């Protein structure tokens, strides 16, 4: 029972990071109808920027802000420089360009910084609180949960309650109509990419201190799991990303705790296959138009 509670609490923190990263994929999918396979590489580039600033100034928070800004900037640059030039309404070129971007970014980072794992210090202790003899969340886990929840709430407010969010949604759902009504659709799409990459960078920044260290491939597994989460939840649904993120986080934590760490990818694959067999568009998929 102790172990179960510990694994659940660890899974919760992991699930929050997963949900945040999956949410970033959902934002980009909703604004540009592209699955950004380069999200992990872009996020890791932002973490390198944060690492460099933290090393130079000694402040974690300066690094965190730099990482978020670098992520947003990188997202905007990629959208303006690459994705905009691709033909619309064909999913393949976007995916292939993103794969090329992954190779360029990861190889470039490995050449510039070397392939070593660089340890990153978390701003809070990772020693868990003991409640009733059971180790539960650590202060850093609480920080992770809080940051992820705050950012997700802020994004929800932005998208659902602000005029900018309305324009963002209009540009994503009905670009032509929105353009006729005076929304600057290209600018909104760039903004969506920037928001999404900043969110992904935050997820990566939260994850890296709990892992082996910073390395060009440090976020790869997070991306694969988050992609699975986004697909399970339905690529169009932020709520789906949240629910599936927490669910997959708990699943991975329990499987790692009770079976082995190497069985976790199999469990995620199995869950994903199961969900897609029952609902090919994910759990929270919108109704599709009928075909013949």
């Amino acid at each position, binding site marked *: 029972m102790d172990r179960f509670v510990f694994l659940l609490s660890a899974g919760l923190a992991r699930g929050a990071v997963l949900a945040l990263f999956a949410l970033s994929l959902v934002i980009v*999918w909703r604004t540009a109808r592209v*699955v950004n*396979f380069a999200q992990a590489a872009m996020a890791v580039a932002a973490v390198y920027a944060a690492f460099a600033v933290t090393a130079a100034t000694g402040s974690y928070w300066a690094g965190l802000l730099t990482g978020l800004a670098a992520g947003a900037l990188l997202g905007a640059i990629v959208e303006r420089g*690459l994705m905009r*030039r*691709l033909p619309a309404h064909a*999913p*393949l*070129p976007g*995916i*292939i*360009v993103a*794969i*090329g*971007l*992954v*190779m*360029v*970014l*990861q*190889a*470039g980072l*490995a*050449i510039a910084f*070397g*392939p070593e794992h660089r340890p990153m210090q978390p701003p809070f202790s990772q020693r868990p609180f003991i409640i009733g003899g059971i180790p539960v969340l650590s202060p850093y886990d609480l920080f992770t949960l809080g940051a992820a929840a705050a950012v997700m709430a802020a994004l929800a407010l932005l998208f659902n309650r602000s005029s900018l969010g309305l324009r963002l949604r209009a540009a994503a759902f009905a670009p032509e109509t929105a353009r006729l009504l005076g929304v600057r659709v290209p600018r909104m799409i760039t903004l969506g990419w920037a928001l999404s990459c900043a969110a992904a960078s935050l997820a990566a920044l939260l994850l890296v201190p709990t892992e082996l260290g910073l390395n060009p491939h440090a976020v*790869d*597994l997070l991306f*694969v799991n988050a*992609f*699975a989460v*986004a*697909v399970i939840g339905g*690529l169009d649904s932020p709520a789906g990303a949240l629910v599936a993120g927490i669910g997959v986080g708990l699943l991975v934590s329990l499987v790692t705790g009770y079976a*082995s760490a*190497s*069985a*976790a*990818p*199999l469990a*995620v*694959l199995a869950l*994903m*296959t199961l969900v*897609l*067999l029952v609902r*090919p*568009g*994910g759990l929270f998929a919108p109704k599709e138009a009928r*075909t*013949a």
Partner: protein
Amino acid sequence: MKTLLRALLITLLAIGGTFALDPFRNYQLALAAACFAAVAGLTVLVGLTGQLSLGHAVLMAAGGYGFAFAASAVDGPWPLALLAGLAAAAVVSGLLGLLLGAAAARLRGPYLAGLTLALVIALPAAANTLPLGGDQGAPAPFFPVPEALAALIAVEQWHAWLAIVVAAIAVTPLVVLRSGSAGLRMRAVLDDETASRLSAVDPGAVKTGAFVASAVPAGLGGAVLAIATQQVTPGGYGLAFSLLLVVAAVIGGLGSIGGAAIGSVLVTVLPWLIDELAALAPDDLGRRLDGNLALLLFGAGLIALTTAWPGGAARLLDRLRAARPLRFATPSTTTER
């Protein structure tokens, strides 16, 4: 018939070509032939049905494991073991392809890419959980040069011969399929699913069939790799290798078999060539460039090709071929400067 003759001719030419290569080049040729089989399958799948699979390395691994276990189990003359191994490779990869295809028939672009991506990541876990020999992988039997040829050729050249023949057997049916009515149905489904349904073409069946037709050559490619390297390890079939197959298909031009051949030679030879060059750089820089420089160039090439020049190498050849007679035949209407 014409296709078969052409395939025979190319195979014989390739086998003759092995005499001009040293043992290491012959080993690389075997690797390129293995890649060619897999990339040909992938390029037909992506180019004709629009289904992007990031998991073709896993299909190759399935073929490799099938080959290793079946060929080791057969206790008889070497041709028997080889044939049993190849049959097992085709069956195992075909079955996995059928499973994936059944899923693919229900999924659209990004969902399928996600499923195949998760599959690649799950391969090492599967190797450790199932009786596949864990991270060390499974040993594949060694096929020595037959006695009649032993005085004539080295073992690398013999393996290159086997690789070329197996690749030819894997790819030729794909060429026939692509130019026949099955290829037409695939293009129809890619263009408009509703219209093809109205024409009594079942998109689900076509997509599943395309996946199987693409998985079997990939599995045979995996068997070729197992012959050349005498082992199958999960580490050899990771995400990087899977992406390299996609790179080869895109560089060659999606949908083109000849392009697949160009692409797979490039992804086999270029990384080695670039690493040789990088080794000339000073110590620390050389270590950082090792492997990464090739990846960087491939990534940049992938982006440049997709944004600027989507046809790939195959279209370039077509255009050169088409352009030459045209330039002479048509009188120029503009004054040349």
